[in-house]
């Protein structure tokens, strides 16, 4: 892997390779060739993205810039650059995205039956969009990639989705666009203000310049709200979550996996990357309200999931609960919790991705997602059942599988947090582990166990084929690996997280000091006046 790390423009290659692949697809004639080309492109992207892992030296990360940097002047006259790089926050998410790429391509192999070329081209563009979001260190670039992901997703849901796809697609786009457009206002204000304060009056969207600018407390509040709203809708945090079940249920399997696996992480990632370091004081002021929303999400999402009859909807609501944990971890402001949140993003991508894949495989066989239509299928599809039980256990947070590591660190860090610590939050959040068992085991109970009706199509369902096993196996291996040996993964982000938390603390105190000085300075200057 080391030779990969020395490739020139590695990060750019990783980001744009899928998009180049999408262009190539235009000239590919047959459906089968389209599939194989997409697979080749995504696998290649994944392989060279491993170079990022090899090339990133977590210990040597500096506070002034990411590693594997590429920065190119973009708009002369303003400080907007093409600025991408790797640090501890985005490395694992990028790898998760590139890993899910081939898996999604494989999962759509027979699932997508019409306009195959268009589907795969959109999928590849989507991958570029998501990778760009994670790799950007320029707010403007981030924003462009952030919005870029909407377009392919809109078509993927709207063209290849279920019965009610148009409604779901429109709702998804308008809801998220509503948030991100408000954020754009914030980006502009921030760019000008920071430009005046720390960049010789030149408008800037460079992340490092923006972080070095300490925003006055009053402005922090409304800027934080603009940014946080955009990201919380994306996460989605209760009560902004209702687009999610619709989008998930209507989207084709591949779309659901991207959505759950990485698109939602753009929200949580945005909170960590922008909301916390840009607006530290406001973030701590609003930590309680947001933690309470996350808490409601955890319990409420679980209970609503429990009431579902549609397996896909159940998993969609479980995402609300699981991402509630992540948001909680982010707003605890402790290393343990933030590290837990970082690893939990990856975990959720793996286990919920696997759950959606398996439900998609069932849907492909029986064309129904209602749990009542199944029952006892553990007998007819043992291998599918194995993977399902495995993913459910990972999702439930069983120690030894990935979900536990994240949840444990988050709850541990939240409990000792000085911002939202103590009994109130953690006690209720921990009940989430009970509820997760309740609704997910109930799903297994209804779908897989019981008497298998000999005359129903359930009895003659074919078990997983080699392709399906092949695409689930890497996920299962990673779930196991992250469960028993998460330390190497945690190490990659530890220093970045610590740097971030230090920055937040320093900036927070500096802003309060500045405010106090301003208050003290006022009467003095009043005295000086005649």
């Amino acid at each position, binding site marked *: 892997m080391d030779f990969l790390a020395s490739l020139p423009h590695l990060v750019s290659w990783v980001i744009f390779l899928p998009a180049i692949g999408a262009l190539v697809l235009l000239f590919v004639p047959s459906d089968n060739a389209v599939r194989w080309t997409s697979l080749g492109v995504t696998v290649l992207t994944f392989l060279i993205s491993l170079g990022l892992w090899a090339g990133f030296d977590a210990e040597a990360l500096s506070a002034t810039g990411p590693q594997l940097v590429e920065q190119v002047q973009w708009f002369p006259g303003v400080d907007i650059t093409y600025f991408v790089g790797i640090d501890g926050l985005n490395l694992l998410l990028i790898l998760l995205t590139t890993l899910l790429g081939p898996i999604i391509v494989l999962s759509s192999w027979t699932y997508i039956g019409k306009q195959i070329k268009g589907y795969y081209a959109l999928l590849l563009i989507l991958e570029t969009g998501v990778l760009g979001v994670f790799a950007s260190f320029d707010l403007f670039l981030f924003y462009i990639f952030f919005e870029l992901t909407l377009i392919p997703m809109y078509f993927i849901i709207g063209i290849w989705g279920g019965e009610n796809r148009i409604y779901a697609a429109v*709702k998804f786009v*308008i*809801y998220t666009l509503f948030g991100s457009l408000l954020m754009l206002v914030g980006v502009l204000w921030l760019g000008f203000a920071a430009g005046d304060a720390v960049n010789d009056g030149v408008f800037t969207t460079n992340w490092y310049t923006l972080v070095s600018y300490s925003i006055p407390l009053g402005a922090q509040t409304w800027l934080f709200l603009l940014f946080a709203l955009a990201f919380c809708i994306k996460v989605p945090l209760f*009560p902004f*979550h*209702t*687009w999610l079940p619709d989008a998930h249920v209507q989207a084709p399997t591949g779309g659901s996996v991207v959505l759950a696996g990485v698109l939602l992480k753009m929200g949580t990632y945005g909170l960590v990357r922008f909301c916390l370091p840009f607006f530290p004081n406001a973030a701590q002021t609003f930590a309680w309200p947001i933690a309470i929303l996350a808490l409601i999400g955890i319990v*409420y999402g679980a*209970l*609503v999931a*429990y*009431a*579902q009859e549609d397996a896909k909807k159940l998993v969609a609501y479980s995402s609300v609960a699981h991402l509630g944990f992540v948001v909680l971890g982010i707003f605890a402001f402790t*290393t*343990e919790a933030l*590290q*837990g949140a970082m690893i939990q993003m990856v975990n959720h991508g793996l286990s919920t991705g696997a759950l959606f894949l398996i439900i998609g495989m069932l849907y492909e066989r029986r064309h129904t997602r209602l749990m009542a239509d199944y029952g*006892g299928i*553990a*007998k007819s599809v*043992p*291998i599918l059942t*194995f993977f399902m039980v495995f993913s459910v*256990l990972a999702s439930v947070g*069983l*120690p*030894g599988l990935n979900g536990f*590591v994240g949840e*444990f*660190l988050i*709850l*541990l*860090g939240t*409990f*000792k947090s000085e911002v939202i*610590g103590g009994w109130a939050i*953690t*006690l209720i959040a*921990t*009940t989430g*582990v*009970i509820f997760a*068992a*309740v609704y997910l*085991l*109930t799903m*297994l*109970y209804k779908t*897989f*166990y*019981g*008497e*298998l009706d000999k005359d129903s199509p359930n009895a003659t369902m074919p078990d997983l084929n080699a392709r399906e096993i092949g695409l689930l196996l890497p996920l299962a291996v990673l779930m196991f690996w992250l469960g*028993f*040996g*998460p*330390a190497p993964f*945690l*190490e990659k982000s*530890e220093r970045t997280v610590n740097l971030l938390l230090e920055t937040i603390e320093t900036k927070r105190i500096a802003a309060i000091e500045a405010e106090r000085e301003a208050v003290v300075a006022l009467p003095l200057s009043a005295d000086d006046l005649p």
Partner: protein
Amino acid sequence: MEATSVRLILLLPLLGAAINGMMGLFAPAYRKQETIIGAIGTLAVAVPFVLTVLLFLGHDHGAHIVSTYTWMAAGDLSISFDYRVDALSLIMTLIVTGIGALIHLYSMGYMHGDGGYWRFFAYLNLFIFAMLNLVLAENLLVLFLGWEGVGLCSYLLIGYWYTDLKNSAAANKAFIVNRIGDFAFLLAMFLLYQAMTTAGVAPFGLDFTTIFENADVLASGTVALIVLLLFIGATGKSAQIPLFVWLPDAMAGPTPVSALIHAATMVTSGLYLLARLSPVVLEAPGVMMLIAFVGAITAIMAATIAITQNDIKKVLAYSTVSQLGYMFVAAGVGAFFVAIFHVLTHAFFKACLFLGSGSVIHAMHHVEHDLEHKGVLPSSDLPYDGHFDAQDMRTMGGLKNHMPITRWTFLISTLAIAGIPFLAGFFSKDEILFKAFELGYNGATWAFVVWGIGIVTAILTAIYMMRCYMLTFEGRERWPGAMDTKPHESPWTMTVPLVVLAIGAALTGYIGLPPLIAEVLGTESWIHHYLGAEYGGPVAEFKAEHHVPHLTEGILLGVGALIAVVGVWLAWANYRKSGLETDNTIRRRLGAVYTLFANKYFVDEAYDATVVKPITEGSRKGLAPFDQNVVDGTVNGLAKSVSGLSGWWRGMQTGIVQNYALALVLGVVVVVALMIFV
């Protein structure tokens, strides 16, 4: 050497599980290879047992830490897969691997012909792996890994015959109730971590060594809270009030599972936890009183239920709950080593009883098949309404002539659990009662109450266990067509474990002689010296200032022996004379109380009404529609109001050009007027 052994002990069962599981899953032809599957499964536990024995023999009485690799680290937290070899973990490992290996061997016979043979052995091996993690762990989180791991295996094995939804429901119940306990366990870890790190203990890995060394930095309230939370966790795993409801249902699993998981090993992990943390638990006397009372009340409650049960496995299940109650009494009065002693003896006689019942059920299944074959079943000639049930004692009776080995081993274990002198149960149970008495003697009056409850439970135990034996093996043969359809003794793979366990049930008591007898014989209680902190072991205990006089101690021993003999005699005499009629007599005598017992104090119903129903109905009828109509309704309402507004607004766009022209003209007029007049 030691490190390698520990690694092998841990990894072999995991390897066995992986081989049987993966091969069985992906290679259907492998599923039929019962001998290979069984041999791999059994060896994967038997070899670790041998290794453990070697470790045990070469153990120098100290605590050795075997480190492997870092599990997770973040901030002040640094957790490693470290294992602790000391007296306590060795005793537990011996029980787990030894009894585990016997039960694996037994399962080869018991599960013969079952379609999921490979699955069964994979689960069992996985269970052993998890259980070994639990008992060998050096820190709370690895212990928790094992703790939840055994819960998972318990779930998988209870729901092993998943085609019957009842079994799957029981499995779900077990897992979820255990999770409630685990919830408290997690909170205990959070609190401990927070308290330790804010006191400056960092990095902290929740490891026992650091906990014991720094226990004094914790405020006494914090310690009490931690112990309380851990105890709540223990009530889940070890089936105590209020979380005991899952264990009787767990009998839905195959009988070897009931023997291994739900009697000998997993359910005792709560006790192990308290014993492991005994130096800390002793700092929370208030919680200890609670533990003792919960244990005592659970013991008597389960014993009263056991008297009314007709399913042979249910009797044994409630008996297990009751015996676990005893162990918690021991822990509550500060005699942790006695709790472990009872764990050990109980593992032998209860595993033997369960395996014996399995042997009986195995035989009765054959009877059932024969009867069906002959056309006798379905029959109306049953002592109860409904179908023939191979586990119902009312259709058994007189099995002693057909299954001699099962009968004798079952009888020995029954007498052992009843507390008949000089069998294992006599020593361990009496020691528990004596320790309770001793605490009372030292000023804690409440301990006398616990002691009293224990005495009453002891006599109940003798009665219901003897009843179980009498109904199964003595009296007349009560299954339909008993004249020409006879059960058969089980194969050697099943009887050998029975014999070994019965020998254990008879003899293991001698490692824990009561002080009085030990003194008379000029020896000592081996287990006390092996485990006790004052002799260099890991288990701390409450130190009595005033010793109970020898005379009193002797009387107590005599009373213990007497009630056991009386209880056994009562059951023997009555059930021999009138058989099933005795149950009816008891029912008539007790009246409404009997109904209460027979319905398990309506605890399940109470939980159903107060917890399960509200949550189910609440989410189905409350929250789900709320989400749809209110939360999503608000969003859609917002969208609708925007579109409504624009609908109203668009009325201006008539599409008639003249209207636009009119507006234009009016505009011009206004502008011109403004230019002229303003």
